[in-house]
């Protein structure tokens, strides 16, 4: 065999799993070996532990602490599977596949970074901010966050640990600027690069925005997943293709993504 077995399912020990806001939970669990491999932008496929719900749930890595050997994930209870995760208590065991997927690439030539988080797409921005700050101490990191209302706002303070500024927008104006997250951008942005994760409609507008201004833009996208390793072809997204007759082809979010250059995506 030329192939070596380098990956396996692992078990994490839950240290904390607390309600943050609304239906959003903040979980920290220990997995000292696996945190070493994790990179900002990747995700974990977390099993529910309930035998009636067999598929793992793809959940972005919010933060890794190499010293403590812990992963932090922030997830919304969107269905019965994530509701099972919300039941986990400190000391419980968590079955996980990963980290999987592509990471946000950070170019050391860049200085001005825009990190844009929409709702429950915000968590991966934290590890990304941390990574940028470590890699480029002089970086100017602007974080723009959009939520439905002030009751959904998460990670604002955590992000301030690494960002130079954190600007919040809410749909209903109960916090920060009333409007969508792009409304919070400065009129003449000097962004070298934009990174984002959030609802696809937000990513689409952001992509347009970036393209008009010729700013590199990387987005993390979501799709229903089964295997999380690239085998089942469930979680595909349309990506532009020069060789394909239709001009696009399906790529796997879990393998080629979840982070894509927004220019490569075929936005409908």
């Amino acid at each position: 065999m030329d192939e070596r077995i380098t990956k396996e399912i692992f078990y994490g020990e839950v240290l904390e799993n607390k309600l943050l806001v609304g239906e959003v939970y903040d979980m920290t669990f220990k997995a000292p070996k696996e945190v070493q491999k994790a990179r900002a932008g990747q995700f974990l496929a977390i099993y529910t532990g309930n035998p009636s719900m067999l598929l793992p749930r793809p959940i972005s890595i919010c933060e890794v602490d190499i010293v403590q050997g812990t992963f932090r994930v922030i997830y919304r209870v969107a269905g019965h599977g994530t509701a099972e995760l919300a039941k986990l208590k400190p000391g419980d065991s968590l079955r996980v596949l990963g980290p999987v997927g592509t990471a946000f690439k950070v170019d050391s030539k860049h200085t001005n970074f825009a990190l844009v988080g929409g709702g429950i797409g915000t968590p991966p921005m934290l590890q990304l901010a941390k990574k940028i700050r470590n890699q480029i101490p002089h970086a100017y990191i602007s974080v723009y966050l959009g939520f439905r209302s002030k009751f959904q706002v998460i990670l604002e303070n955590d992000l301030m640990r690494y960002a130079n500024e954190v600007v919040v927008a809410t749909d209903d104006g109960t916090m920060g600027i009333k409007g969508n997250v792009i409304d919070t951008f400065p009129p003449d942005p000097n962004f070298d690069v934009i990174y984002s994760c959030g609802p696809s409609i937000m990513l689409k507008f952001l992509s347009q925005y970036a393209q008009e201004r010729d700013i590199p833009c990387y987005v993390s996208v979501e799709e229903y997943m089964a295997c999380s390793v690239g085998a089942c072809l469930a979680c595909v997204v349309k990506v532009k293709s020069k060789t394909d007759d239709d001009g696009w082809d399906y790529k796997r979010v879990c393998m080629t993504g979840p982070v894509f250059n927004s220019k490569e995506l075929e936005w409908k």
Partner: protein
Amino acid sequence: MKLNINIAGIEWKNPVTTASGTVNSGKEYSPYVDFSKLGALTTKSVSAKPWKGSQTPRIAETYGGMVHSIGLQNPGIDEFIQRDIPYFKKLDTAIIVNICAREENDFVEVARRLEEASGIHMLELNLACKSDDLGGFRFAQNTKWTESVLAKVKKVTNLPVIAKLTPNVTDIAEIAKAAEAGGACALSLINSVSAMRINIETRKPILASAMGGLSGPAIKPIALRCVYQAYKAVNIPIIGMGGIMTGEDAIEFLMAGATAVGVGMAHFINPRAALEVIEDIEAYMEKHGIDDVVELTGAAH
């Protein structure tokens, strides 16, 4: 203790393969599991031309399973041969290539191409494929269509041809017989069960294709029944599959009449599932003093 089996002259080192469509051509799972330890590796369906497959969402979880409509996305036989055959050559296991098509000629065409290629040991026809020529029905929903496509493929290849049948029929026994008559060397039973889920918030089917195939442990009892009925109807070997998660599940299939088994969705829960099934079968044989795994085949009849 003899774990190896022989289907149509092809030696499998044990009676366990992958169920088509769940591990692609094997590469993606290779960091997690050594497929050379399996009796055979069955690939995802390949068609004559590239297929883009279904719109998303392509899957929805169900109680003890999932419904899926991947739409048989695949790069087509040209790229398949170029991309995957070199990989297969590194594996020490029988390679079964599954073929999908919307018309008879395309089954024949892909079989011909694979006949010319090397490093392939068996073909498997996905006869759950739907065809406009058949009024939107599946090849294996009719005895004539089943027999006809097999007979035509057999003409262009010396490779043994397995017929993979759909459980979405009134009488699986008559379809099994038709496949045998058409020259199938073995039957793969079962493909997924036609099913769906609805999102009660959006009030739409979850799958973009509305309906899809149900897989997972939920369907195991249906698959066992199909194997049991087909075993009574035909003399060719059966590869049993549908919801196998453990060695116990696999042994049920063997006893129902299967000579080998396919592990599918279980990979998504445990990438090592197929290896553990082999280990469990071995442990069972040891515990029960069974010298040859074929003694288990049809033991429940």
